[in-house]
């Protein structure tokens, strides 16, 4: 799971123009919330344990606390400011290193993050672990030989895929309905285990970033906008003229 700036938060650039200033409000990355919810539902159906993991500074612990309050059993926090600046390949390497002693059957991630939007970390992690993966998942069922998942394809198409376990799935927003944490859940969360993984523990697995943000900026408006004015009928006539002679769709 990942903590990202709130959707409607105004973002300010840092002095170097390479990242945003940290003084914004944060929230859980929306697709990751659906990934957690799906994990909780699978646990309720098939029993087992749900472990949540994030990489980020101390503030990112909030995401894990909320997940524990919703029903996750334990948490792993790769805690360091440096994790914010890792590319997708390095983030996945750090996760792979942090969980190498674990015996997971399924790893869920959101399909992409609302900040970087790489849409890569889950698939890279699968490759590093040597596991199969499937992306943009809308449904998961257990089968005798593993799982059957429903992949969302483009343009309204879907596909069922049978796959063995262990596996990595990237989860689409809207796969389920999110639950709220209960008061008792919030209380219990305080006593649930949270393992802190310092940067030093996974450092040897991480290499130099293979891509670099040279400059971050507010996109320029590139279009010239022409206003169409007049009475409704005049506007309609002018629009049809544009549609015929300039847009050429009539």
């Amino acid at each position, binding site marked *: 799971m990942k903590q990202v700036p709130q959707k409607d938060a105004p*973002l300010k*650039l840092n002095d170097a123009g390479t990242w*945003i200033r940290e003084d914004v409000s944060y929230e859980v990355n929306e697709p990751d919330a659906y990934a957690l919810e799906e994990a909780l539902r699978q646990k309720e159906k098939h029993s087992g344990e749900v472990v949540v993991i994030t990489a980020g500074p101390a503030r990112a612990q909030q995401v894990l606390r909320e997940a524990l309050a919703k029903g996750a059993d334990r948490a792993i926090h790769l805690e360091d400011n440096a994790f914010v600046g890792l*590319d*997708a*390949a390095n983030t*996945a390497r750090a996760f792979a290193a942090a969980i190498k002693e674990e015996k997971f059957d399924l790893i869920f991630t959101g399909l992409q993050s609302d900040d*970087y*939007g*790489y*849409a*890569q*970390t889950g*698939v*890279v992690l699968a490759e*590093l672990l040597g596991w*199969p*993966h*499937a*992306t*943009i998942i809308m449904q998961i069922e257990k089968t005798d030989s593993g799982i059957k998942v429903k992949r969302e*394809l*483009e*343009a*309204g*198409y*879907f*596909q069922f*895929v*049978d*796959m063995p376990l262990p596996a990595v799935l990237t989860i689409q*927003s809207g796969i389920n309905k999110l639950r709220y944490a209960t008061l008792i859940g919030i209380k219990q969360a305080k006593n649930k285990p949270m393992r802190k993984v310092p940067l030093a523990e996974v450092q040897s697995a991480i290499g130099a970033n*293979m*891509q*670099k*943000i*040279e*400059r*971050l*900026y*507010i996109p320029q*408006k590139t*279009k*010239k*906008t022409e*206003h*169409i*004015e007049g009475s*409704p009928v005049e*506007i*309609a*006539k002018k*629009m*049809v003229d*544009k*549609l015929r002679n*300039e*847009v050429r*769709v*009539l």
Partner: protein
Amino acid sequence: MPDTILVIVEQREGKLNRVSWETLTAAQGLAAETGWTLEAAVAGSGVASLANEVAGKKVTKVYAIESPKLEPYTADAFAAGLKQVIASKSPKVVLMPHTYQVRDFVPKLATAMGRAVISDCVGYKKDGGKLLFTRQMFQGKLAADVSFTGDAPWFVTFQNGAFRGDQVQAGSAAAPVETVNVEIADGVIRNKPQEVFKEAKQAVDLTQAEIIVSVGRGIKEQKNIELAKQLAEALGGELAASRPICDSGWLPMDRQIGSSGQTVAPKLYLALGISGAIQHIVGMKGARTIIAVNKDSEAPIFEIADYAVVGNLFDIVPPLIDEVKKAKTSN
């Protein structure tokens, strides 16, 4: 020898995905700017005719990457097959459209080769000796120029609508097609995909629509959808909506445009009562022409509109339907 740009076009069920031409347009521009050689590839089983179709464009060579195991699509087979070709041809840059299929296999492919992907790019530029790829960050609120700091091959995917597919240049003569048979060992493919299907009967592929009339919160009530529908019909276009309309169930989810819906690049996008939240804009800003009707002159949709009408859509749409019908009958 100059460096090579390799474009991997996408095919679905024996047809080239239209966004492939957009990637090829981007690649032709990049080739012109860098002086690098441009090659293309299509992967599948029995893709010779598709390779020939691509060979008609301005490219130096087309690879038809063949294996019966590339059909149906799996990430395992595509990563294994493409890795063999890329490793032997050693391109500097590998370009692909940022489709769901590419998203499914390219991070795996790049990782298997120890390389990185700059994904979902909307442009490129040369800055001194450095090649930069522009991508949106924070859901389009910011843009970033990103460089590769590792070794080639560099993998790049381009967002649907970032380039104009109809601007792809034809070649003066057909480019040679080289068939590359790739070996995919037993056991490589772990997933078993079933048939592709459509969920809803009326499921519509808005990505192929040339004209889209789209409604947002400004439509106010479900019964008013009919007005937009009449306009879409008069124009011969498809009806679409922003997320809140589909969440309310006023239109089915398969008509939703935006980050959680479809990404479209029609000739005309007519936005009625859409304010233009970034989640919506990322799905339609690639439209050739955007006309926005909104009563709020400050609505962000006007930032990207070619034509702006500040006014009440309920006043403007009825006469517009009449005028469009008149124009059609006089044709």
